[in-house]
């Protein structure tokens, strides 16, 4: 049975400032949702809050995934449950190679003692290497990528590809892509778009945060939501992106009585 992530009346504040103010949203495995909203409307705040960033304080509301109260869990436990966030601004970890880190992450998420894992709880090196190389090829990244330090000195495009590589390796149930398309050239958007659409299937639910319908040409969402003033004010289908393209956010702001 497919599982869903249900967000009810969520309130999140950052350093005492309320940013998310009563947000409702539900994403099921196998569904594709797009979340759009102007700069500063709280999209990344929602994403990080869902993943358990300590700075993003949940004041009230609930987040349930597969019957589990997500808000009670540490970020790593959320990852093990099947949540994934592709960061808008991934953090550099100097001195830690992408491959070394990913082997730990994959082992942690798939569970210690999972089939074939070694005594130290890590998945066998050869198996890991094979899988990593395969997925890097699909993403069109060079083999040397694996030896580079995680996000350290990566170009904008490399960072976003590294995020998608992690998504592909960790095989989550629900993935939030926070502006994975921004900062990418047209070719890179296509590669990322195609890679993500390859991952899409009945086991993966996706929440795509984006400003541009470009990416959505590759990954067509069934649901489109508009975030304004910390709430989802409109939900609809593909046609909503067309309305936004043509008219911008102002008519929606006016309709809901929200000041800029």
């Amino acid at each position, binding site marked *: 049975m497919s599982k869903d992530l249900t967000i009810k009346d969520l309130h999140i504040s950052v350093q005492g400032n309320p940013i998310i103010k009563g947000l409702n949203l539900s994403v099921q495995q196998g569904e594709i949702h797009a979340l759009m909203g102007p700069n500063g409307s709280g999209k990344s705040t929602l994403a990080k809050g869902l993943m*358990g960033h300590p700075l993003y304080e949940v004041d009230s509301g609930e987040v349930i995934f597969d019957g589990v109260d997500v808000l009670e869990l*540490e970020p*790593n436990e959320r990852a*093990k449950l099947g949540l994934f966030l592709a960061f808008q601004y991934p953090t550099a970890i100097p*001195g*830690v190679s992408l491959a070394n880190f990913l082997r730990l992450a994959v082992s*942690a998420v798939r569970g210690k003692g999972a089939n074939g894992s070694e005594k130290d709880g890590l998945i066998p090196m050869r198996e890991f290497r094979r899988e990593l190389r395969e997925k890097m090829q699909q993403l069109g990244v060079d083999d040397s990528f694996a030896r580079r*330090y995680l996000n350290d000195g990566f170009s904008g495009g490399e960072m976003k590809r590294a995020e998608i590589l992690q998504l592909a390796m*960790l095989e989550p149930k629900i993935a939030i892509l926070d502006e994975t398309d921004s900062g990418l050239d047209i070719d890179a958007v296509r590669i990322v778009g195609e890679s993500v659409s390859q991952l899409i299937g009945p086991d993966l639910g996706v929440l795509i945060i984006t400003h541009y319908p470009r990416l959505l040409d590759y990954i067509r969402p069934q649901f489109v939501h508009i975030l304004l003033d910390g709430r989802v004010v409109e939900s609809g289908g593909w046609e909503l992106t067309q309305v936004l393209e043509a008219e911008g956010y102002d008519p929606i702001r006016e309709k809901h009585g929200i000041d800029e």
Partner: protein
Amino acid sequence: MQKGDFSKEFLEKIAATEPQWMREKRLEAYALYESLPMPHTTKDDVWRRTVDMRTQDYWRRTRRHLRSFAVDRYHPSVPNGAVSPEDVDYNEAETAGVLVQVDGQRQHTSDSEILKEKGVYFADLHTALQAQPELFRSYFMNKAVTLETALKSGNIAQRNKFDALHGAFWQGGYLLHVPKGVRVEVPLRVYIRMSEAEQADLSHTLIIAEEGSQVVVLEDNLSTTPDASGFHSGAVEIFAGQNANVTYVQVQRWNRHVWNFASHRAMVARDAQLCWVTAMFGGRLNKINQAVVLEGAGGNAKMLGLAFTDARQHLDVSTAQEHVSPHTFSDLLYRTVLKDRAQSAWGGNIYVYPSANHTDAYQKNDNLLLSERAHADTLPGLEIQAHEVRCTHGATAGKIDAEQVFYLMSRGLSYTEAEKLIVEGFFEPVMERIPLESVREELNTSITRKLVTS
């Protein structure tokens, strides 16, 4: 085991079997030792940071760190040759020679055929004193670490009571002499151990690499018991002769109850290369004075430091890169991780003398604090008196980055796993410059052990 004390009578006893000139050298050091007052951490500038840096202003009367240290509590052993061998773990095929010393006593030396064939001399210091008096006389505490070697802080220089103590009562350690043109690619290994409580270890390292020679020395200082208190008063002297290539690695893993005082000094001759790795994990209080002197044109020194302290450990390191000749190069990178209430003070100086035009000197010290209560002071310094010099220096101290921890945790790593990865990444720039895989592995083991103990 027989024990001595730091008295003139004991000095006479250990000098009884030694040449007259050595006895006189010891006595001279003893006179200096007697004349210098015990360092005072509030009055003596060069010892100012060898004290609890958080509390010194408010708790003058608490007996902390150096103030609770009493030399007299510790006993040097009486040398009587080799005692029964102890197991050490090393790969024989990758080792050119081994020396094991426990509580100041030589236990075991083995030279490979290669060393004998090539005329390399490698022995404990007491044996060497009898066998190599000329080398000894010309190098031992005569050119590198001497009684004149001073601790420095800004313009203030002060002779070091512990160097004098070492000169008077040194015991144990080793002499390595690599003749002209001899190249030993496989490392030599030295294991210096302290096992008994209230033991004083006064080991001395003397490495002489003649012109065009090459050698790699891996030295491990370790307490074999976790809570036997101890005192180490050591010295390291390295001579990299013209065009020689020396790699020296010292891993200090004394337990947390050892008071550690040492002066390390290396002399780098014309076109010589020195790769010097200092890793520090142990000690209750460490006061380390480390200097490289680029004496000859074209000399090149790489100084790598890696330290991890926890509990209430205190680490006070002063480094100096002294450029005497032109076209010399030095590059220092020290990285320290601090846990719990550990404290570290690092003061580094680059001196470029008027005779050292066209010098490149780099210096960097970075500290990573894993707890709110850890404390790191870092003071880089430059003193340039020459022309066409390229120097950079920098220092950082910062807490573990919460964004990095979150990023890794969001990928499934626990806090502990994330912290470990960040620490390993922090040490990586030092590690990647260490040319020996086996050393990197040993260091990683020590780092992991530090991370898991609490």
